[in-house]
């Protein structure tokens, strides 16, 4: 499988202070779904921002294999924890935001934004204002905005953490469908273990101080995964054990 991004020995520190995360390496192949879990303060969100080149790492590098110049796509797109929709733009214009920096005609942008909206099931909400949407719908637009730029790697920062359980479970299922349909790779940060096991084919556990990769799980359960299955429950338990060991080791509690 071709590589989407190669993360080598990354160190993250805030404002010249001691590192919060060090020695993070991972190679993400095409069509992969990776979850990064860890308690708060291990630099999960910052990791995504370093990969997206919004924040400079204190050490290490992020290597993106050159695929030739593609005007119509971006290597990465971020899905934020909160919807972060521009309230002065209608839904469709929010989805078009990331396309405005590309050399596309207005018609092309509109078509792609409409496609992305349809993909998240909001094709008929294009003309709405963000404040007219529910929390779940806003998060779908957040997702559509990222999908519209056709990223090779989608970076998701706990995007479902503020939603109610029913909406969260629906969107988790939809995210898997979108991953399949678009063929994009995903790097998904969360502290919800159930969510990680439900979504990912690989779960990277961060812990300690400074945080390091302490476990690197494969989740080989077939989709669609059932939360009641023994295999699923075993995986979640493994993950929880891995994290609670860290708490004891790192004196995190």
């Amino acid at each position: 499988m071709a590589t989407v991004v190669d993360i080598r020995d990354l160190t993250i520190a805030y404002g010249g202070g001691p590192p919060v995360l060090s020695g993070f390496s991972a190679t993400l192949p095409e069509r992969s779904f990776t979850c990064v879990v860890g308690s708060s303060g291990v630099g999960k969100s910052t990791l995504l921002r370093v990969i997206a080149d919004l924040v400079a790492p204190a050490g290490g590098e992020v290597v993106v294999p050159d695929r030739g110049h593609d005007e119509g796509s971006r290597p990465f797109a971020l899905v934020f924890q909160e919807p972060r929709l521009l309230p002065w733009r209608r839904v469709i214009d929010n989805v078009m935001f990331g396309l405005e920096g590309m050399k596309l005609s207005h018609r092309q942008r509109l078509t792609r934004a409409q496609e992305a909206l349809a993909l998240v099931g909001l094709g008929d909400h294009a003309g709405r204002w963000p404040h007219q949407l529910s929390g779940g719908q806003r998060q779908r637009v957040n997702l559509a905005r990222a999908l519209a730029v056709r990223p090779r790697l989608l970076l998701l920062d706990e995007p479902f953490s503020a939603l109610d359980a029913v909406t969260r479970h629906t969107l988790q299922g939809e995210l898997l469908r979108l991953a399949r349909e678009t063929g994009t790779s995903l790097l998904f940060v969360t502290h919800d273990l159930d969510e990680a096991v439900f979504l990912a084919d690989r779960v990277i556990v961060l812990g300690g101080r400074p945080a390091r990769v302490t476990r690197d799980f494969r989740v080989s359960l077939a989709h669609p995964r059932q939360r009641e299955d023994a295999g699923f429950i075993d995986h979640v338990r493994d993950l929880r054990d891995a994290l609670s060991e860290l708490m004891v080791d790192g004196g995190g509690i």
Partner: protein
Amino acid sequence: MSVGKRGVLAATGLAAFLLFWEAMPRLGFTSSLFVPPPSGLPLTFWYELSGGYWASSVAASLGHYLMGLTIGTSLGVALGVATALSPRLEVLLSWVVRLLRPVPGLAWVPFAIIWFGISERAATFIIIIGVLWINYYAAFAAARAVDRDFLELAEAFGQGGRWSKLFKIILPGASAGILAGVRTGLGQAWMAVVAAEMFGVHGLGQRMMQASSLLATDVVLVYMVTIAALFGLTDALFVLIRDRVLAWQR
């Protein structure tokens, strides 16, 4: 209270006010020179209108108003936004602003006359000063209050350039606050127009001064009502435009 009831009550208040006003001079409590009765105003207005004074004064004042308002508002908003975005500029200007801002627009009249003579430019200058600082502070606060997370969004989606950030994030994000400042300026500018023209530049203010020197208090009143009407009109127009621009707000 129902809409109908409110309307009746408001009309009653206005009628009582006019009645009291009319009664004061008519019942001899005061001279009609001091308080011209409102019933005489339509006729006075007609004389001003047919003589061409009214239209000419209103046109001249509107010209000063629009010119001063446009320049003062643009300057204030531009300066306010620039200062909000550049900490260096903010510090650089902080003492200059503190020094100049408390000076009332009218205190500039002597300099306006020395620099520009008794001219349209002098009147425009006074109006510019009158609206500059209101817009400066409103725009500064509004641009400062724009959610910084939106700037990260712009950077994450390839819109991190200076102008993209300004036009796609800062200005739309600050628009509600900026427009609130512009609206306050709209009223301030009418005050400044009248005051600026009172030193002799053609317009409503000048006509009022002429009338008052002839003790034609009814004429003065006609122009007072005119100013109130013009202010109400510009404000209503502005609110109409603002509500369209800010349609995205709930």
